[in-house]
């Protein structure tokens, strides 16, 4: 059952009250698509998350009751119907070395070799459940269970931009330098967020990410191409994939 709650006087949360699964993510994505087809002056923006969508609106143009009824109506019917196009975005990563100071720790904890960790981490297409924390920071689902590693006891005061890490059962990549407590296993030379680029973001919630292992020298080459704006991130279109929970 879908429920609505105010988050202050200018935002409303639509909660789907289901377990967090790829199927729920597909429903949330389809709800956001329906929202984007609405031309309602009152609606400012919306933020999809793991199990809800929060809509920011102007109470001058629409009351809580009115927007609540409108959104409940919008969320009715089969949310899994219709074509569902998303992107698979391939992010090159140099694993280990100074770029991944915690890779060996993750290997030791999992009982796998370093190469097996790299193989497993890069062998999954991760679903982007939501984006938050930093511009372009993806919350990814699908980390192989054996790679789960608790956060650092003492977070680093600065994690370099592009770092790829593991925290608990989550994996992700830092678009900007930031303090952080994730176990760092590698780094991408790609700018996950670049306000000066025509498309500042490479993906949105609902897309998938695949980490592609590259050598240190490939990393340097790509880094130069990124610097000269000649690097193209590889993307594939995924169509109508049936969600498997």
């Amino acid at each position, binding site marked *: 059952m879908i429920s609505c709650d105010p988050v202050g006087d200018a935002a409303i949360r639509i909660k789907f009250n289901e377990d967090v699964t790829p199927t729920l993510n597909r429903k949330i994505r389809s709800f956001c698509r329906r929202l984007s087809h609405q031309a309602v002056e009152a609606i400012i923006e919306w933020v999809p998350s793991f199990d809800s969508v929060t809509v920011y609106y102007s109470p001058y143009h629409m009351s809580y009751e009115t927007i609540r009824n409108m959104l409940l109506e919008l969320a009715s019917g089969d949310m899994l119907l219709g074509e569902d196009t998303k992107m698979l975005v391939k992010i090159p990563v140099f694993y280990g070395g100074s770029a991944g100071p915690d890779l060996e720790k993750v290997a030791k904890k999992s009982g796998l070799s370093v190469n097996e960790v790299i193989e497993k981490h890069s062998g999954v297409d991760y679903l982007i459940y939501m984006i938050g*924390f930093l*511009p372009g920071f993806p919350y990814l689902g699908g980390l192989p269970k054996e790679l789960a590693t608790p956060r650092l006891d003492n977070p680093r005061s600065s994690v370099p931009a592009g770092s790829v890490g593991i925290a608990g059962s989550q994996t992700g990549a830092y678009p900007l330098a930031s303090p952080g407590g994730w176990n760092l296993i590698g780094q991408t030379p790609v700018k996950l967020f670049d306000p000066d680029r025509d498309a500042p973001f490479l993906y949105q919630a609902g897309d998938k990410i695949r980490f592609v292992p590259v050598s240190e020298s490939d990393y340097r080459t790509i880094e130069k191409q990124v610097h000269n704006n000649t690097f193209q991130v590889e993307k594939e279109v995924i169509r109508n994939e049936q969600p498997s929970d």
Partner: protein
Amino acid sequence: MSQPLFKFRKTGLQTTIQDLGRQGLQQYGVVVSGAMDPFALQVSNLLVGNGRDEGALEIALMGPELDVLSSAVIAICGADLSPAVNGVRAPMWRSFEVREGDRITFGRPLSGMRAYLAVAGGFDVSVDMGSKSTYERANLGTVIEKNMVISGFNVNGFHGLGLSHTDIPDYNDPGYIRVVEGPDTDHFTEKGIESFYSQQHIISPESDRMGYRLKSAEIPHKNGADIWSDAIPFGTIQIPANGQPIILMADRQTTGGYARIATVISIDVPRVSQLPPDGKIYFHPIKVDEAQKLAVKEEQFLRILEMNVKDAAD
């Protein structure tokens, strides 16, 4: 054509450019930023004939020192940080003219935390992702540095427009801060909720544009503080495991992972933003429709002011 307007002889404690923020990009994780006191920002803009969303200087507690390089019409609204022109007290909540060679200074903070200095025509600074707001962490907007010269689209407008003294907010008497409860009310014990609304909270010195940390008697959770990361509007109050509330402010992240007990109503957000460290507050819950009536009233006030300014300019 823009021309050099001010030179920063001193930058002040935390002087930034702020408009109403970067809206529409939160789903990509882009922080909204914008004025901590949106009411004072909008009034300062209207009094010089700007649009409400124009970028102005946001000046925190210890103000900058500015050399005026070309004549301009300005208005200073928000906190009273003892603004002066050539050593003579300057008006607040009223537009006035400064001339080439003048020096604008700030002194002792008399009330509030943040003042807004708007200039007719607006500042000629970079617009990043739709906003002039400074957000240093993501290299968005302009960072103000010592000896920097800031230009403006100088408009030789009218001046002398002011707000009636009954419409000027009193930051020295914040009283109760009104909130809308939830959405994670069920994460707290009954005692926790009761304690949140009955006790006096104190603003911690570790408060900034991102969030106001409160020193409070611990607010206990039922089963831990963590939620699935979710949206956090301006003024939302989250309570982490230590039971100490944090009010999320203009530079908050787009999502947070701690239970949200309530959200400050829109028209009371500026009253929080103007509270200094060690300031004291109480929270009082009201219904969402009541909060919205108040928000609509304030929006009407700003729209009427905008119309009056247009009439005065004609």
